[in-house]
């Protein structure tokens, strides 16, 4: 199996495309900065968001029970799933019991994580992702490359060609407005024909039992206001105590994600429509294991805004697919090894540890510290490749001995330009100084 570095190498092989992707993603980060600048209390909001999440995580079972009680009182049915398999079986069971053959979905990273689409398709259910970006990647039979902008890796010409084959748009049509219009017509038919609608959950309010779903397109709303069944799938960590706390997260989420002050639709579903059914599936799938690990617990605060990806120099230049997991970027690299440390041992190394992710995170997750902690843990599990272990060992040995460090420095100043070095594949090595820092400093402090 290839690792992140190998998959990233494929992505960067096309240099102009890599630069295009880098700029496209950075553009979103810049919009976030502008949006943030209009909120003078931004840094306080981030702290509050982090504290509310810390509180909620410390009382998660109590809040989940409160949420369940209120959701049931409003007429919803609540299901619990220990893992992805159980989640998929529950959703399929609901659909089977109602004879549903056509399902429309709005964005849910949880169902991506559980590979629900594949499961339902194997059982004969037509699943249509209705977020435009998700529909595009679904047509291509590939996973989203970004949690907020699933098709950010594609150019409009590629989408135009795809739509020509799938939707019959004219050859060569690449105007985003016309392509979106074609998708609108196609998906409107799917909404009208659906027998059930499935949504993710951005927030679940304990004090009211409502689930809150944020979209810009309105697809979650169309998907739930037409068919008679609404299924909402949520991870256990989505709980907020009450609407007052929700205000903090809604102010942070869209600004961090896309630079908008709030998403176009922020929908609060409290129980089903009259004559309809609402099912809420609460999923653990490894989250209780993360909660038990103090050093990684903060990663459960994540509200899935994608800001850490947009700012990450590695994500921007390697693309979301290079991570090989549903949630890419820094937060994905912290979460994935919990599910399978061996399979995802490469991800905590897909980072320069520059800390930019930690700086933009709206709930102050210590992302780059967690990445570093994972590296240590993976090494102790014997899951780090030999060359990385050797370099680390030698480095640790050298840095602990002044005399060795001096000799090594002297050798490097002479030989570094002649040693084959992957770092210099796309960059020039700066000229080596003639003297060590130590020697230069001595001259400055005690001039002749």
């Amino acid at each position: 199996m290839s690792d992140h570095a190998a998959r990233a190498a494929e992505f960067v092989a096309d240099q102009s495309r890599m630069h295009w992707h880098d700029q496209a993603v950075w553009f979103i980060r810049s919009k976030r900065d502008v949006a943030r600048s209009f909120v003078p209390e931004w840094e306080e909001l981030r702290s509050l968001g982090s504290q509310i999440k810390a509180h909620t995580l410390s009382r998660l079972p109590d809040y989940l029970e409160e949420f369940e009680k209120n959701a049931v009182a409003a007429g919803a049915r609540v299901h619990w799933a220990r893992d992805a398999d159980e989640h998929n079986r529950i959703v399929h069971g609901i659909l089977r019991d109602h004879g549903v053959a056509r399902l429309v979905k709005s964005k849910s990273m949880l169902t991506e994580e559980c590979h629900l689409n594949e499961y339902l398709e194997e059982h004969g259910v037509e699943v249509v992702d209705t977020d435009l970006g998700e529909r595009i990647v679904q047509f291509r039979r590939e996973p989203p490359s970004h949690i907020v902008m699933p098709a950010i890796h594609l150019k409009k010409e590629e989408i135009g060609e795809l739509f020509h084959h799938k939707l019959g748009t004219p050859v060569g049509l690449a105007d985003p407005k016309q392509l979106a219009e074609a998708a609108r017509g196609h998906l409107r038919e799917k909404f009208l024909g659906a027998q059930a609608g499935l949504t993710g959950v951005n927030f679940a309010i304990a004090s009211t039992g409502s689930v809150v779903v944020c979209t810009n397109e309105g697809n979650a709303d169309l998907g739930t206001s037409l068919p008679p069944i609404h299924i909402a799938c949520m991870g256990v960590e989505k709980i907020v105590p009450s609407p007052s706390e929700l205000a903090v997260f809604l102010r942070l989420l869209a600004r961090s994600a896309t630079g908008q002050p709030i998403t176009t639709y922020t929908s609060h579903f409290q129980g089903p429509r009259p004559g309809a059914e609402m099912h809420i599936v609460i999923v653990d799938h490894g989250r209780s294991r993360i909660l038990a690990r103090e050093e990684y617990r903060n990663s459960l605060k994540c509200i899935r805004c994608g800001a850490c990806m947009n700012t990450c120099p590695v994500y921007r230049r390697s693309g979301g697919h290079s991570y090989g997991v549903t949630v890419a970027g820094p937060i994905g690299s912290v979460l994935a090894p919990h599910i399978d440390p061996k399979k995802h041992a490469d991800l905590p190394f897909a980072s320069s540890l520059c800390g930019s992710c930690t700086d933009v995170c709206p709930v102050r997750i210590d992302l780059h510290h967690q990445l570093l902690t994972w590296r240590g843990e993976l090494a102790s599990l014997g899951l780090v490749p030999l060359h990385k272990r050797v370099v680390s060992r030698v480095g640790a040995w050298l840095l602990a001995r002044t005399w060795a460090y001096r000799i090594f420095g002297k050798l490097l100043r002479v030989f570094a330009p002649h040693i084959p070095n992957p770092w210099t594949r796309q960059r020039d090595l700066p000229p080596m100084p003639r003297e060590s820092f130590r020697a230069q400093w001595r001259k400055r402090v005690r001039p002749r």
Partner: protein
Amino acid sequence: MSARDEILKALRAAAAAPAPLPDLARVKAVQYPDLPERFARSVIEVGGRCVLVEGPLEDALGAIPEYAAARKVVSLVPGVRKANVDLASVSDPHDLNDVDFCVLPAEVGVAESGACWIVQHGGPNRAAAFLTQHLAVVVRVDALVHNLHEAYARVAIPSPGFAMWLSGPSKTADIEQALVIGAHGARSCTVLVTS
């Protein structure tokens, strides 16, 4: 043991030491000296139109080209002249697919984001807000607040029921970051601020 009990047990065993819930009353959230104007600017920034209505509501609606051209009009605001769909007689929301224009009342408008709080108590009318080609939202000037903290202090989610923050028309930027208005829902959204 049931999945529910097993999950709750695992979470209970894993939970950290209690952390206090922060006091949100101390948040000094953004305030604007010119509340209606700031609200209008925010609505425009999220792709909508905003009119500070001085005369009759019907005149303001009539000035919206999409309203003037609309054939099938749903209104949850009483007294709208062109409204010609009796929602009480609609039993299937699919019948609202050809709605051209929908007028919705909002309980609160938020200046920092241009978002309006729209409550729907059920029935098929929820679908009208999303199926319609164009939208108008009517909000009273004294229902405007500065920020979302103040807003949530004023509203309640109906139980059972549905409520949403709506800010501007439906939109997407999923194709090369190009902003396209009118993804699945309303292609235009005009907010009318009445006194």
